[in-house]
């Protein structure tokens, strides 16, 4: 059982997490945060294996990983 949580306000939509997630859990969403960024959202949460690749590569600390 694993999951991720994106802190929308911190996301700048650089998409590093989308690129490096080995399970394609993340994708750019349609909603924007207060800074105008289309923030990333988990779209395939059940595939998450809590490897933390997304969290580590995220420059802005926008992703929290739970296990």
């Amino acid at each position, binding site marked *: 059982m694993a999951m991720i949580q994106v802190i929308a306000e911190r996301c*700048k939509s*650089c998409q590093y997490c989308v690129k490096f997630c080995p399970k394609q859990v993340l994708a750019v969403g349609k909603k924007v945060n207060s*800074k105008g960024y289309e923030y990333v959202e988990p779209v395939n949460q059940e595939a998450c294996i809590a490897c933390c690749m997304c969290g580590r590569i995220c420059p802005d600390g926008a992703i929290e990983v739970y*296990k």
Partner: protein
Amino acid sequence: MEKIYSRTKTIQEDKVSGFCPGCMHSTVVKLIGEVMEEMDVVEKTVMVTGIGCCGLHMDYIAYDTITAPHGRATAVATGMKRSSPDSLIFTYQGDGDFASIGLGESISAANRGENITVIFINNGIYGMTGGQLAPTTLLGMKASTAPKGRVAEEHGYPMHMCEILNQLTAPAYLVRTSCNTPQNVIKTKAAIKKAFQNQLDGKGFSMVEIVTSCPTNWGMDALTALDFIEEKMLPEFPLGVIRDR
């Protein structure tokens, strides 16, 4: 469920990083904070920042910090460390700061073997001032002050600070890493940790040169800039441990 990864507490909880999307300054600042927490050294750490984007995080971190004049961070750190040897002092400098205007201070501090840690961000360009030619700009790479790109005959060649400092006897640890993949992020964090530990062990001058992107001034999106690091920056600035004593 247990939270197994979240942002370091050394960044103020309610603050958002002030860097551009994809900027790896953010990544490195985050890694430094993680290392400080894991080593339990927050209470005695002081960051000396240079001038430029390398000072953009001063208002959202939660530890002691001082701004040095442009290029002088290693001199300021020298004074701090020598007069306050129990503190852990690291400088945080960009390529313009460390390798251009501060070259004299950088080499001299390394040559004295000052017991400080340098975090050197090499993104091949001046960020805050808007994309001017840096000492580390690649041949052919365009800059606002080299509109036709860097030309060896006019601008010389990119400077390799690890290799230059490796000519000196005193430095303890010289390493070049990147943050372009999760694996390299992990290696960068390990390098920062080792550089901090060296200081605690009194080993002297340690520098972690981190090859990063500047999507804004490179004129590309963050993902394309990742490819640029892999294809262009890393062949010029090969990663690895250059010195470990």
